[in-house]
C-alpha cells in the first residue's frame, strides 16, 4: 500500500505487535463490553422487565408531577432539573445545584425522584451527588454496570477514563500500522489460504477480518478516545487556556450562553404543551428534558430527541418555561450552529451506533465482535510464533483466561443482578457477581494445568450461563414471553433468544472441537457417533 524500506516495515510490524500485546487484553475487554453496551438500552428493558406500553415517560402528563415534586424539594435545588426515562419506563427527576467536591471540581448535588409517570406515585427519593443518586436506580443496574465497564473499566475518575483513552490510542496505532504496512492491501483482504499451514491460515483470517473492520476500528478508537480524554483531562486543559482555568465558564460556553438572569419568582407554564410541541416538530418524544431556574422568570426548558428518518443528528429545542414560547432549535453545543457542533453531531452516533435504530446497533455489535476476534487472533499469532519461548507461555495462559473468562464474568454480573432482585440492592450485587466469577476464573486459571482443557471448561460454563439466564430472569420475577408480547415488549423474548442462540453456538463450537467427551465424562465417543 505504501512504499517502505524493509526496516520501516519491520518497525511497523513491531509497533503493530507490541501495541496489541501490551494492551491487547485490556483492549479486548473494552471492545467486548462496548459491543454489548451498544444494546445497553435494550438490555435495560430486558433485565428490568419493562412494560413497553410505558415507552417514554414524556408521553404522559408530567407537568403536575413536576409541580408536586417541586413542593417536596428545597428551592436551592431548582437551579437545574434533569428529566429522563429509566429502564422500567419510570420518570426520573433530578432537582440539583452544583457544588465543589474535594477535588475542587463542580459536581451535581440534589434530590432524585423515581416516579410512576402514569399515576404520579413517587417510588423512590434520594439526596446526594449525581453519581450517588443515579446509582440507587436498581432496575438500571445491569445496563449501567456494562456501560461503566466499557467507559472506565469500573475504575475511579479520572484514571478509568485516562486508561480507556490510552487504549483507544493503542487501537488507532494498531489499526493504522496494520493498514500502512500492507504492500498489497487489496489483494490481502481477499486472500484466505485455508489449505496451507494452520499458522498461515490463521494469519490470513486475522488480516482479512482486521482489514475489513479497519475503518470501523479507527472510527471507534478515535471517537472513544475523544470521549475519554475530553472527559478526564482535556476539558480542564482547554479551560486553563481559554478561560484562565474556569471550567464552569467553559461548560457554560459549550452549553450555549444562558439568557440574562432574572430571579423574579414566576408561575411555570404547561411544560406538557412545550414537550408536545417539540415532539410534533420531530415526530418522536424526547428522551431527555432539562429545565434551568425552575420557578423563576428566566426558566428555560430544553428537549433532546433521538435521531429520526435515517438522520444521524439528534434534535434539541429550547423554550421559555416562564412564558411558554419557543426560543430556538438548539445546536448540540454553543448558542448558534458551528463547525464544532456539526462535527460533534456525528461523533456520538458513530461511536454508539444508534443512528439507524436496531439495524445500525446490530451492525455495530457484529463489527465489535469481529474486532474482539481480531485482537485475540492477533495476540494468538504473536504467541504462536514464540511458542518455544517459556517466558511467553504465561501470557498465552493469561490470554486464554481473559479471552474466555471475560464473557463468563459478564454472565456472572447478570446472575448477580437477577438474584439480587429477590433480596434487594442490585446496584451492589451486579459488580459483586462479576468479581466473584472473575476470582473463580483466575483461581481455575492458575490450578488447571492443561490450557486447552481450561479454555474448553470456561466456554462450557459460559454456555450453561447463557442458557440458564432467560430462565433465571423469569424465575426472579421477570415477565414470560407471552406476557411481554402482550405488553408490546419484543425485546424480552428477542434477547432471551439471542442468549439461547449464543449458548447453542458455544455448544456447537465445543462439539466441533471434540471437547465435550473430555469435559463431560458421561458423553462418550460412541454415544456421540450414535448422535451423528
Amino acid at each position: 500500500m505504501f512504499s517502505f524500506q524493509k526496516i520501516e516495515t519491520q518497525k511497523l510490524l513491531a509497533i503493530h505487535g507490541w501495541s496489541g500485546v501490551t494492551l491487547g487484553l485490556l483492549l479486548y475487554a473494552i471492545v467486548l463490553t462496548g459491543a454489548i453496551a451498544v444494546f445497553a438500552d435494550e438490555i435495560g428493558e430486558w433485565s428490568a422487565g419493562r412494560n413497553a406500553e410505558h415507552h417514554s415517560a414524556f408521553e404522559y402528563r408530567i407537568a403536575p408531577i413536576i409541580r408536586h415534586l417541586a413542593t417536596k424539594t428545597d428551592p436551592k435545588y431548582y437551579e437545574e432539573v434533569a428529566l429522563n426515562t429509566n429502564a422500567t419506563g419510570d420518570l426520573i427527576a433530578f432537582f440539583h445545584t452544583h457544588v465543589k467536591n474535594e477535588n475542587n471540581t463542580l459536581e451535581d448535588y440534589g434530590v432524585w425522584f423515581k416516579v410512576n409517570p402514569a399515576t404520579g406515585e413517587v417510588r423512590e427519593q434520594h439526596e446526594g451527588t449525581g453519581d450517588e443518586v443515579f446509582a440507587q436506580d436498581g432496575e438500571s443496574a445491569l445496563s449501567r454496570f456494562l456501560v461503566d465497564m466499557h467507559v472506565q473499566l469500573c475504575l475511579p475518575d479520572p484514571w478509568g477514563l485516562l486508561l480507556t483513552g490510552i487504549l483507544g490510542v493503542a487501537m488507532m496505532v494498531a489499526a493504522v500500522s496494520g493498514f500502512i504496512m500492507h504492500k498489497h492491501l487489496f489483494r490481502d483482504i481477499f486472500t484466505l489460504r485455508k489449505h496451507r499451514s494452520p499458522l498461515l491460515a490463521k494469519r490470513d483470517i486475522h488480516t482479512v477480518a482486521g482489514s475489513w473492520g479497519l475503518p470501523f476500528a479507527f472510527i471507534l478508537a478515535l471517537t472513544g478516545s475523544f470521549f475519554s480524554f475530553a472527559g478526564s483531562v482535556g476539558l480542564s486543559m482547554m479551560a486553563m487556556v481559554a478561560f484562565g482555568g474556569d471550567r464552569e465558564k467553559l461548560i457554560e460556553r459549550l452549553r450555549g450562553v444562558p439568557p440574562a438572569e432574572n430571579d423574579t419568582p414566576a408561575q411555570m407554564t404547561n411544560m406538557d404543551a412545550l414537550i408536545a410541541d417539540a415532539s410534533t416538530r420531530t415526530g418522536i418524544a424526547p428522551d431527555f428534558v432539562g429545565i434551568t431556574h425552575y420557578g423563576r422568570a428566566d426558566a428555560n426548558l430544553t428537549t433532546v430527541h433521538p435521531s429520526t428518518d435515517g438522520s444521524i443528528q439528534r434534535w434539541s429545542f429550547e423554550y421559555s418555561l416562564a412564558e411558554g414560547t419557543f426560543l430556538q432549535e438548539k445546536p448540540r453545543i454553543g448558542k448558534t450552529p458551528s463547525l464544532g457542533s456539526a462535527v460533534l453531531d456525528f461523533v456520538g452516533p458513530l461511536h454508539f451506533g444508534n443512528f439507524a435504530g436496531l439495524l445500525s446497533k446490530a451492525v455495530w455489535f457484529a463489527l465489535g465482535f469481529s474486532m474482539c476476534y481480531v485482537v485475540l487472533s492477533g495476540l494468538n499469532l504473536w504467541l504462536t510464533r514464540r511458542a518455544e519461548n517459556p517466558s511467553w507461555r504465561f501470557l498465552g495462559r493469561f490470554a486464554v483466561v481473559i479471552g474466555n473468562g471475560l464473557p463468563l464474568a459478564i454472565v456472572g454480573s447478570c446472575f448477580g443482578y437477577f438474584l439480587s432482585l429477590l433480596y434487594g440492592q442490585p446496584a451492589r450485587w451486579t459488580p459483586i457477581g462479576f468479581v466473584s466469577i472473575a476470582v473463580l476464573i483466575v483461581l481455575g486459571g492458575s490450578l488447571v494445568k492443561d490450557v486447552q482443557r481450561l479454555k474448553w471448561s470456561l466456554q462450557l460454563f459460559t454456555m450453561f450461563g447463557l442458557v440458564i439466564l432467560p430462565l433465571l430472569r423469569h424465575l426472579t420475577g421477570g415477565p414470560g414471553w407471552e406476557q411481554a408480547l402482550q405488553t408490546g415488549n419484543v425485546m424480552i423474548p428477542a434477547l432471551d433468544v439471542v442468549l439461547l442462540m449464543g449458548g447453542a453456538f458455544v455448544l456447537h463450537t465445543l462439539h466441533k472441537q471434540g471437547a465435550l467427551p473430555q469435559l463431560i465424562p458421561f458423553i462418550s465417543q460412541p454415544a456421540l457417533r450414535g448422535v451423528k
Partner: protein
Amino acid sequence: MASRKQKIVRWIFAGPVSFVNAILIMMGMAVWFPKGTAEVDNIVLPLLLFPLLVVSIFLYAVLDRKLSRMVGVMLALLALHAVILARHFAVIGGG
C-alpha cells in the same frame, strides 16, 4: 544500523515527547485555531483531534529515516507551541 543511543533517542521522542507535543499542540490550538460563529470550534476540534495528533506524531517519530530531522521537527513543534502558550498566559496573566 542505528546505534543503541540513537534507538533510545528515537523512543524517547516517539514516546513521552510525542505525548507532550500532542498536548501542547492541542492547548495551543485553543489560542490560534479560529473560534467560529459560536466560539466553540477552538475548544472542541482540538479535543477531537488530540488522539489523531498523538498517533500521527508517534508514527512520524518512529518512521522518519533521518533521526536528526525528526528531532528537529519535534523540537520545533514543541518550541512553537510552548512559545504560543507562554505568550498567551503572559497576556491573560497580565490582564
